[in-house]
């Protein structure tokens, strides 16, 4: 490894807030020349914000950035590129219908007599690809090549003679093992030429295959940086999955009597090909079942299959002992199942509607469109829910889009409580929520459980899982790998199971 005096990139005390979200808080990050630096963290941990700040796509609120010891201030990705800092984003942002050449020379075609010289352009495109040892027909449309080749073309496009830093955002997400290996060879080659590479991925194996150092982000903070060789898998997973128990109160007494008895919902071998491996799951009244696993392990997938948002193509479901197949959210709602999705903005709230309308929505769906809830009744339910859940709003007729993240989450919870759900599926109920609301929601989950609801809680925060769950299903690589119950529900046990102990 070539060790230079100053690191290639040094970020100091970087902070960034978006309306309602604290994306990064006082993050220090050091990237050396000639290293592959893996950047890990859950969705919303701040990875993309960090690299966007590094590459000029987003401005920082506070902090300093040094490039080879020089303070820099990028106003745009173009400026960052001019100084040798390039990114390849997760979604390949090329134009599939154009030829490889056109994609590679999009904003700088060689011209002859004012016209584009395609011969020269092809030549340049080939040169660019040669840097990656790639020899393909550059005149064919990009879409005619595999995703792996497209990914390489995207890298070739970002790579200049003088590139100093290359950021690869989930480059292997849609590659198979062999294709990923091809990409790693190229990364090693680039590294040998002294380029500093930031590698974002959620495949732990790949981190150990190719990276020299690892940094982990969680909730907008850097929780650790270490050489890959000195960070065993178990330690890494523990870093990613959340803080040690600090302020959360002791777990509730286990073995709640209510939790015995027949399951309301029992899934047997439910799964979907290329989506989620078949799993068994029982949900009982008065019991919280946790779903634990790393990013991409299948937590959200499990929730969506149970709720019918994604069709299962295998397995059987029994609802109160009767066989049934839940084919749509509509049907799930009729069965008194509620689902608070992970991505509240995209799948949860209906921003233009008022808080009241959002709260009564599922109840209204159950009543059917003809039997509209009278306005007074809507008002009463909304007011009651606002009070019970402590939703901070002056009145119920404000558009829900104007609330903070925590309050939006409560509105969606209220929606399912108002509709008298008996099973509640919560996917990342506390993501992007500030500490105060976080504790409230955790307490609320326990309360709902005590009230006799059956809960399924998926979370990337291991402590949250340990705090709320009576039983934990552990997931890895889209398969259920085991179940832990009662007194065995501890951080250590879960981490061991995730790591494949």
């Amino acid at each position, binding site marked *: 490894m070539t060790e230079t005096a100053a690191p290639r990139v040094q970020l100091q005390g970087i902070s960034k807030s978006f309306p309602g979200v604290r994306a990064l808080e006082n993050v220090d990050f050091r990237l050396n020349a000639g290293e592959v630096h893996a950047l890990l963290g859950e969705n919303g941990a701040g990875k993309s914000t960090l690299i966007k700040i590094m590459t000029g796509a987003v401005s920082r609120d506070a902090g300093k950035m040094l490039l080879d010891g020089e303070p820099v201030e990028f106003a745009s990705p173009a400026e960052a590129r001019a100084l040798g800092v390039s990114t390849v984003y997760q979604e390949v942002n090329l134009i599939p219908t154009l030829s490889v050449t056109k994609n590679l020379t999009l904003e700088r075609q060689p011209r002859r007599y004012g016209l584009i010289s395609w011969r020269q352009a092809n030549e340049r495109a080939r040169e660019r690809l040669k840097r990656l040892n790639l020899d393909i027909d550059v005149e064919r449309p990009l879409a005619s090549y595999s995703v792996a080749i497209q990914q390489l073309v995207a890298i070739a496009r970002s790579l200049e003679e003088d590139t100093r830093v290359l950021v690869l955002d989930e480059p292997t997400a849609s590659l198979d093992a062999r294709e990923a290996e091809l990409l790693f060879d190229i990364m090693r080659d680039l590294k040998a030429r002294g380029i500093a590479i930031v590698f974002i991925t959620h495949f732990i194996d790949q981190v150990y295959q190719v990276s020299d150092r690892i940094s982990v982000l969680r909730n907008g903070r850097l929780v650790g940086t270490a050489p890959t060789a000195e960070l065993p898998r178990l330690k890494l997973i523990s870093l990613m999955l959340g803080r040690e128990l600090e302020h959360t109160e002791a777990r509730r007494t286990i073995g709640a009597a209510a939790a015995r008895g027949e399951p309301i919902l029992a899934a047997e071998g439910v799964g979907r090909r290329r989506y989620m491996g078949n799993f068994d799951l029982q949900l009982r009244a008065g019991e919280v079942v946790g779903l634990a696993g790393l990013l991409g392990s299948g937590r959200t997938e499990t929730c969506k299959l149970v709720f019918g948002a994604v069709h299962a193509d295998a397995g059987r479901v029994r609802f109160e002992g009767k066989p049934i197949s839940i084919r749509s959210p509509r049907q799930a709602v009729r069965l008194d199942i509620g689902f608070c999705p992970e991505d509240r903005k995209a*799948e949860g709230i209906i921003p233009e509607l008022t808080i009241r309308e959002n709260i009564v929505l599922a109840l209204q769906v159950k009543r059917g469109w003809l039997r509209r809830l009278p306005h007074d009744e809507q008002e009463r339910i909304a007011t009651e829910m606002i009070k019970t859940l402590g939703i901070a709003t002056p009145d119920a007729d404000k558009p829900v889009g104007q609330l903070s993240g925590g309050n939006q989450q409560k509105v969606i919870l209220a929606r399912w409580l108002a509709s008298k759900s008996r099973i509640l599926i919560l996917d990342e109920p506390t993501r992007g929520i500030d500490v105060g609301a976080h504790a409230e929601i955790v307490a609320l989950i326990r309360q709902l459980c005590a009230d006799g609801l059956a809960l399924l809680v998926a979370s990337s925060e291991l402590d949250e899982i340990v705090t709320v769950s009576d039983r934990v299903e552990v997931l890895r690589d889209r398969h259920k790998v085991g179940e832990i119950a009662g007194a065995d529900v501890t951080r250590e046990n879960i981490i061991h199971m995730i790591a494949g102990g």
Partner: protein
Amino acid sequence: MDHAGSSQALAPSRWSLGELTSRSWFWPILALALIFMVDAVVSPGFFSIRIVQGRLFGSLIDVLYRGTPTALVALGMAVVIGTKGIDLSVGAVVAIVGAVMTNLIHRDMSPPLILALTLGAGALCGLWNGFLVAILDIQPIIATLILMVAGRGIALLIDEGLIVTFRSDFFSAISTGEFLTVPSRIIVCAGTLLFLWLFLRRTALGVFIESVGANSAAADLAGINAKLVKIGAYTLSGLCSGIAGMLICADIRGSDSNNAGLFIELDAILAVVIGGGSLAGGRFYLGLTLVGVLIIQGLTTSILVSGLPAQFNMIVKGVVVLIVLLLQSRRLRQSIVGVFRRKTS
């Protein structure tokens, strides 16, 4: 309320200017009032209404009368736009419905049956659009473009390429007659508005439509059948266009497939947007859409009575519409600033 802080001091009493301008109805109503005022200046007696030969008579009535077909189409359009869709085929539906009606009249069926079949044809056209959008998942602008293009052809096929005329006292009474001195088509329009309001706002359908338009993924996860809601919205739009087509056809006593309802979709979309509906979906306003129609119609009238050459009509209309929209976007900006202020303080 502790977060209101500074804005509390500015916080408006119920009728302060700030509060008023933030209401969704403020700018459209203001624009309409201004246009009527201009009308009253250039044409004294604009507001006077007399009874001539047992029928209300006056410029205001004339604006309402002429605006009726557009108003009907716009009401349906508002519902479709509420689902984040659009219906370009309304003009073609007007033509189809006219051709169907004319054809049936020549078959000597009983008028009420003809009326039912005619409106049914409109609803069927809407159902087709809904099928393309909701089931085949074609983008609304393309899906309805298909019928927009093909619809006049269908109408011409029914007419066998001719302009077919007819006489029908029943339909003349509905379209150009009057009832208790009020032009009957205005009653038809008011009845449609009442029906839509009851159907959408006194049931939960309106909220479902807005949910699907604002966030279709979230609506789906809340258990709403988004496909059915969309099909319903397009069918309503087809029905509304059908009523408009019936009035237009009965008005000219014939089916003119090439020209009936030509460009009516543009005025209808404009009316919806002037009335505060957003093409991004999520909210629709029936009453304000009618205000939008009156603005457009009032404008046309004022240009005519002011003596400006008719060719200025389109230009002036364009400019005024632009101004109304800009006024509204200022409202939008203010609300964005307002949100921002509340969040930061």
